[in-house]
């Protein structure tokens, strides 16, 4: 189905926001001003955006340690996220969570997560709630190829099938879990979707470096899961991570020239540009305007994050409970 000019511009902008957000963090982290562990999402933007462009705030997502892209794609505020990563009091989580724990429940973003494999069961709960509510809303569990080896993920898949949860397991296969290769760690086969299939789910597969592949695949998946009574589904997107596992990773597991090659041939932004300009849907000028706009927005977010008030010792005690 053909997207409108506005839809195309919006999708490109969303991917570009993620890209520049992460590229900027990659630079700023080297100065030592940003604390903690940061896992960048660069290279996988088409997945987050291709999924979330179909969702409303009533649809829920559960994310991972590599969560910035999912958060941004689901509508989390760029300034609020940047401020959170900088540990400021204005951050989306008041500086309490940081990169690995960004959440905005009102937007349907139920949290990034520091525990690999923790997200899928939570998405099952949200998917059961969606089923009970009966309005055709869904929950999405984003998981990596590494997380698919966690028992929690297996349990979640089976329980989603048993309970007919309105839940979609989105596996982002970027071929690595930290320093370990997918081919070593996933013993059954060369693919994750067949595991999900074995649990009794309908499954799809797509190219996670191509926005249109993700978007069209997800249209089918969502059409299916939004039908009351159909229960869960799973989809695997093959994708690439452009940076190290975390910022500071020596990446000795990469082959020679691997990073250059994937940046050259597997970049979702380049592919998107080629595709829409080739088809005459948008011009390079249209996209360049978005690029400039996004760069400015990221610059502004960093400026605000740096100037934002810092949390204080008293803040430590806040928010443990609602009442105690």
């Amino acid at each position, binding site marked *: 189905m053909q997207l409108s000019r506005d839809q195309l511009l919006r999708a490109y902008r969303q991917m570009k926001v993620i890209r520049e957000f992460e590229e900027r963090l990659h630079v700023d982290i080297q100065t030592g001003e940003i604390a903690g562990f940061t896992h960048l999402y660069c290279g996988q933007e088409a997945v987050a955006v291709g999924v979330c462009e179909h969702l409303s705030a009533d649809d829920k997502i559960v994310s991972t340690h590599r969560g910035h892209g999912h958060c941004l794609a689901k509508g989390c505020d760029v300034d609020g996220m940047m401020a959170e990563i900088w540990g400021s009091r204005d951050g989306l989580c008041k*500086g309490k969570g940081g990169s690995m724990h960004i959440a905005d429940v009102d937007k349907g973003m139920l949290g990034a997560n520091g525990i690999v494999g923790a997200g899928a069961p939570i998405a099952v709960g949200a998917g059961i709630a969606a089923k009970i509510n009966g309005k055709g809303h869904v929950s999405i569990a984003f998981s990596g190829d590494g997380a698919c080896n966690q028992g929690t993920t297996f349990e979640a898949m089976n329980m989603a099938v048993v309970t007919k949860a309105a839940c979609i397991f989105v596996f982002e296969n970027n071929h690595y879990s930290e320093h370990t290769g997918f081919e070593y760690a996933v013993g059954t086969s060369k693919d994750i979707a067949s595991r999900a299939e074995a649990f009794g789910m309908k499954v799809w597969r797509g190219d996670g470096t191509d926005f249109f592949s993700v978007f069209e695949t997800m249209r089918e998946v969502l059409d299916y899961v939004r039908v009351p009574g159909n229960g869960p589904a799973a989809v695997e997107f093959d994708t690439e991570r452009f940076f190290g596992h975390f910022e500071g990773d020596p990446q000795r597991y990469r082959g020679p020239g691997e990073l250059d090659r994937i940046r050259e041939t597997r970049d979702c932004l380049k592919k998107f540009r080629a595709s829409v300009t080739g088809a005459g849907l948008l011009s390079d000028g249209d996209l360049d305007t978005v690029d400039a706009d996004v760069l400015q927005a990221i610059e502004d977010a960093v400026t605000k994050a740096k100037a934002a008030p810092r949390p204080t010792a008293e803040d430590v005690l806040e928010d443990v409970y609602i009442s105690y």
Partner: protein
Amino acid sequence: MARMMYREAVLSTIAEEMERDENVVVLGEDVVGGMGTAGGPEAIGGIWSTSAGLFGKFGADRVIDTPISESAIMGAAAGLALTGKRPVAELMFADFIGVSLDQIWNQLAKFRYMFGGKTKCPAVIRMAWGAGYNAAAQHSQAVHHILTGMPGLKVVMPSTPADVKGLLRTAIRDDDPVIFLEHKALYGVKGEVPDDKDFMIPFGHARLTRAGNDVTIVSTGLLLGFCEAVADKLAAEGIGCDVIDLRTTSPLDEEAILDSVEVTGRLVVVDETNPRCSLAGDICAMVAEKAFASLKAPPLSVTPPHTPVPFARELETAYLPSIPKIEAAVRKVLSYR
């Protein structure tokens, strides 16, 4: 003596014990690194570099890189231990006991007792713990109070490279399951380490790192150094502190603490776990029960508050016990009337 980092002491002890006993096997996530990649094996050797080079030396049967499956790793350690091996399993972050606790707590820890003493379970579970890296609520926790409360586990908390050497060797040769807690902020700390390949430190023997007659300070891990700094500062004022490094929290060297408190009459326990049902509370209670007559002031503890570990620098600093907070507590017990 050789000078080495805390992390190097971990690695070299494991290597020496693997050399000595072919039943010692290592397992964990990324303990080799690079498996199934173009770059090939040994891309990392453990994210704390505590298994670097072991794969090349001892091979895939004895250095087992696992998928991200903590329950299975802990369970496999239990199964290996029940069948004649001596697994040294790595849990990348202590926080991940959350995913794998059944295998540690209901299985590994209880086998010997449940089986009427008819088996042994010589597993070592190593885990990196502690705050100080702004790694937030799921990668910074101190969990030794939880594990110390579990009958069947021994819990070891080295604070120097030499103690790593002596205690890890004891752990690997011990026939019971041992939790070996390595504080992240200590991995880069250097110290003198005995060369003797049989150098062992027995469990349940605390170490007196500063001696004085006025206050007893009990601690472990990273915070031990903070306590020593406070003791050194107060020594210049003529105030003497006993600083006791517990080394193991299970078994606990009650005698060392009680002997000291009998002289000083004043106790400050400094610990990184949350305050409720904690190590600090446990030791204060033990002293109140067993040395009440010696006490000149109520025992005090210095711990983080009853909150998760926060992310931002300012918040984490406020959360953690610090040199000023420890000093204030020591002065408070000293000034008690």
